[in-house]
């Protein structure tokens, strides 16, 4: 068993499950799953993915050719259950909802967060999660370009901004505060094409990426949210952007913040102004600052779909690749862009991106704070996680891959200089399970201690690491055995993970005026209601139930 949160690193143990939880003991009549010789870990936790949103659905709609190539028949489930009918679907880099749930579970993942949901379309995300079986799901709420929030910052009303963030989390049924290119999307909507610096004014010198970052990182902290502000920095994918990423981290130094898909923000400037790896600079800062966490956003060679609220990035990508492009500006809140993309080994930039991601993994001092993601489907599909794990665990394999890639931009890369590190199974359990659960504040997930959710993955030991992680023998979700002998056999509905912090009711009075003037949806029709699952606790909600409005 590998249960790093409880200090268990490859010991032979029993796991007892009852009523959906891990328990100390079970009666001798309990069903036994024989996992002798196998590897047992908690269920996987994906801290940053794109699986259930209106933007994801725009990407799905854009890609019939991908779906055609990857049909997904309905699974052969063990029992007839009207509430969990086996459903067919389609795959590709952006699979249909049911197929997404089945495939995540088939990989041993039992918890998935969608990292970018526009508040106005939050109810569509809930509906998509309702159709994504097995996995427990939640999402992060886009706030970094919210016009109302930016006004509050302009007026110097940071406390009011915090209350608004609290209201918005509850109104959308979201889990955490998300910033994407703070201020930069609003500038794109205004027609700007220049890159954004930390102190670039967004309509006012008081509103800048820095002040937006400070406000929302502070809000997440003050509200005692289970997960800190989840930050996608400015200038994603642009050479030299590591300076901006470091500036952003310094701007909130000493405060908890999660910086996402670090790989896309870790490029330096070569002497000729082109690309080089900035991974070492970035990871050295992260290593030295325990308040910072991140996920890597690894690029994997093959087809991907770039799909982000960071609409100006997609414009640049479309201009450079010529691939088809969807842009969708979302009123008063954010943007959305989609461009299909292929990372090729022989392409110098793709090879650099691949190397930068691996450097971040291999130079990270604390696996609890630098966890696994491909920013699915941006860097590659979640189905490529087993291949990524192999790259981390097997130096020989990694070096073979390295010899195949275009090395034009790899001068000065730590990976090219030779990195000997190989992740252990215990470390893999951290970066795919225990670490993300801890960063997300999920006390009952990512571990196998008594009281934890009974989300368990059993792998048959295999010299082929990739195959081993791609085909777990057994997966238990909430006590239900969903994968048996490598086959998906049950598909119960997952739970929704969300927060509902209390807030100052004055927010709504002011919002009502604002909505009347600028919004096209009535304030009364804006909040999502009727979520089945109880919200996760926040410091704000202890003892003080969130206010319901009507």
């Amino acid at each position, binding site marked *: 068993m590998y249960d790093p949160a409880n200090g268990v690193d490859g010991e032979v143990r029993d796991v007892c499950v009852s009523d959906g939880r891990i328990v100390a003991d079970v009666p001798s009549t309990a069903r036994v799953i024989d996992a002798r010789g196998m590897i047992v870990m908690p269920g996987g936790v994906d801290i940053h993915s794109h699986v259930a949103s*209106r933007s994801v*659905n*725009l990407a*799905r*709609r*854009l*890609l*019939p050719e991908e*779906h*055609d190539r990857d*049909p997904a*028949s*309905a699974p052969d489930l063990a029992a*007839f259950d*009207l509430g969990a*009918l086996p*459903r*067919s*679907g*389609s795959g*590709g880099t*952006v*699979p*249909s*909802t*049911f197929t997404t749930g089945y495939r995540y579970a088939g990989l041993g993942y039992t918890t998935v967060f969608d990292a970018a949901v526009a508040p*106005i*379309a939050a*109810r*569509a995300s809930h*509906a*998509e999660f309702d*159709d994504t079986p097995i996995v427990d799901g939640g999402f992060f709420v886009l706030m970094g370009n919210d*016009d109302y929030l930016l006004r509050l910052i302009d007026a110097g009303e940071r406390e009011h901004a915090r209350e608004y963030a609290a209201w918005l989390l509850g109104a959308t049924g979201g889990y955490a505060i998300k910033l994407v290119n703070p201020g930069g999307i609003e500038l794109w*909507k*205004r*027609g700007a094409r220049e890159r954004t610096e930390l102190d670039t004014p967004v309509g006012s010198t008081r509103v800048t990426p820095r002040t937006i970052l400070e406000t929302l990182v502070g809000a997440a902290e003050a509200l005692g949210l289970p997960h800190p502000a989840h930050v996608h920095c400015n200038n994603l994918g642009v050479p030299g952007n590591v300076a901006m990423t470091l500036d952003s981290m310094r701007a909130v130094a000493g405060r908890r913040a999660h910086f996402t898909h670090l790989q896309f923000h870790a490029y330096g400037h070569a002497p000729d102004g082109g690309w080089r790896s900035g991974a070492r600079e970035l990871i050295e800062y992260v290593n030295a600052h325990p308040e910072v966490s991140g996920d890597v956003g690894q690029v994997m060679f093959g087809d991907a779909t770039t799909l982000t609220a960071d609409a100006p990035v997609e414009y640049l990508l*479309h201009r450079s690749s010529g691939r*088809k*492009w*969807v*842009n*969708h*500006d*979302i*009123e*008063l809140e954010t943007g959305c862009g*989609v*461009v299909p993309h292929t990372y090729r080994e022989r392409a110098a930039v793709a090879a650099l991106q691949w190397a930068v991601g691996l450097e971040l993994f291999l130079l990270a001092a604390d696996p609890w704070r630098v966890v696994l993601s491909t920013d699915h489907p941006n860097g590659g599909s979640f189905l490529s996680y087993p291949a990524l794990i192999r790259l981390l665990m097997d130096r020989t394999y990694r070096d073979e891959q390295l010899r195949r890639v275009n090395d034009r931009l790899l001068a000065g890369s730590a990976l090219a200089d030779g990195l000997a590190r190989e992740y252990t199974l215990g470390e893999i359990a951290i970066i795919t399970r225990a670490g993300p659960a801890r960063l997300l504040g999920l006390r009952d997930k990512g571990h196998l201690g008594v009281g934890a959710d009974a989300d368990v993955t059993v792998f048959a030991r295999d010299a082929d690491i990739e195959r081993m992680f791609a085909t777990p023998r057994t997966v238990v979700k909430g006590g239900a055995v969903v994968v048996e002998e490598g086959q998906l056999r049950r598909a119960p509905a997952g739970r929704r993970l969300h927060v509902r912090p209390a807030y100052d009711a004055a927010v709504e009075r002011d919002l009502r005026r604002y909505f009347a*003037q*600028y*919004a*096209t*949806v*009535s304030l*009364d*029709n804006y909040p999502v*209601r*009727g979520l089945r699952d109880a919200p996760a606790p926040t410091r704000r909600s202890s003892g003080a139930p969130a206010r319901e409005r*009507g």
Partner: protein
Amino acid sequence: MTAALANRVARDGSRIVAPAVCLGCGCACDDIEVVVRAGRIAEARHACPLGAAWFGDGRVPARALTRGRETTADVAIVAAAEMLAAARRPLVYLAPDLSCEAQREAVALADVLRAVVDSVTGSTAIDVLLAAQEHGRAGATLGEVRNRADVLLYWAVDPAARYPRYPTRYAPEPAGLAVPRGRRSRTVIAVDVGDARGPVDADARVAVAPADEVAVLTALRVLAGEEAALRGADGPEGTAWSAARQLAPSLRAARYLAIVHDAEPREAPEGTAGDVARDPERAGALAALSLALNAVTRCALSTLRAGGNRSGADAVLTSQTGYPAAVDFARGYPRYTPYDGAAARFARGAVDAVLVLGDAGGVPAHVTVTLGIDVRGATAARGRPSVPCAVVGPRASERAPADAVAAIDTGVAGIHDGGTAFRMDDVPLPLRPSMDGWPGRPPEAHATIRALLACVAGLVRVRDATSSARRARERPAAVP
């Protein structure tokens, strides 16, 4: 629950439900105050004439029929389920006025049946979806158009006719963030294509011959990207280029340009049979233009869609199957057949049972004729094969042919039934039914389709088990 929260009771005893969402067209205005008095909708305040007609008095039939005879909903559900389970190539057709929740059950039903599922989109706006799949598209939610668009290009459409409140709720009338003086902050340009004319009060207008339409859009795309072509006096000649040269400078000068076009068929197909003449090239040229203009300014297409939660059907089909319309589950997984949708399949005899879900009265006339569910009471149209049919949805007992295997009335999404519907720009809105507590109301569409799904799933399970047992008997015994 949502309705109860917003209910008010007026002095005269009438009940006011607000703010309710109107699905009379794709604008999905969500500021309607529905006044219910004496068990009827007495008024739908703020609604346009189209919306008022959509709400009506809220009275709908609540009958269930099998082959024209009165029965209970349960009996009719079983009859419909048996018809579907016995079919080899069933068709599930999504008509308007279903909530997304009901549509989700409907797609599950098609999946379980290995049926073809199509929606109204498959015979109306499919070209626009196909164009977006080929090129991508630049779009925006309507609030962006309202708040930012300083130049509006109405391409062969005056929204006032079929989307009456578009001008006052979205553009050009309202003031917004970047257009503080409303209409006076905006330039409105009308392009009249033949008889399809833009708004009457446009600041500028350009007439384009229908035969030139795609050429003008293509020329505009060139001019949008190439400044040289604008300046040069010796560029390409012809009426299309000259129209494009007239338009290009205003488009390029915009800070945020919205191109408004109608995805619904241009000519009303009343009384016509067969497919409406499609123009995939026009849709493609518009999508490509919207993208190209973003190289010089910001630009978004505002695509107009009709009512009854059509965009919701596209979204639900996409999320569950990967495809927005015309999906065939025959092989046990979804396949996209946009050039072989419901009407085409029916016409060539490739369908042996039809289930219409939703308000069959909202299905385009040319499709109802093809499907043999003509709302004017004609059953199988001349020369069509007679195919067993069931209708489940609002006013099914009035819409279904007399010999329908089953006709089950349900509530109308947004009037009797709650749930979610999508605005034409894919913004999801919560429905706030006003007649949900009316004693004479029909059952909810969502619950009815779910009951039908349960019944069908059970029958299909038995059918498949029986046929695999028969195959096993007929197979020679395996030698161990």
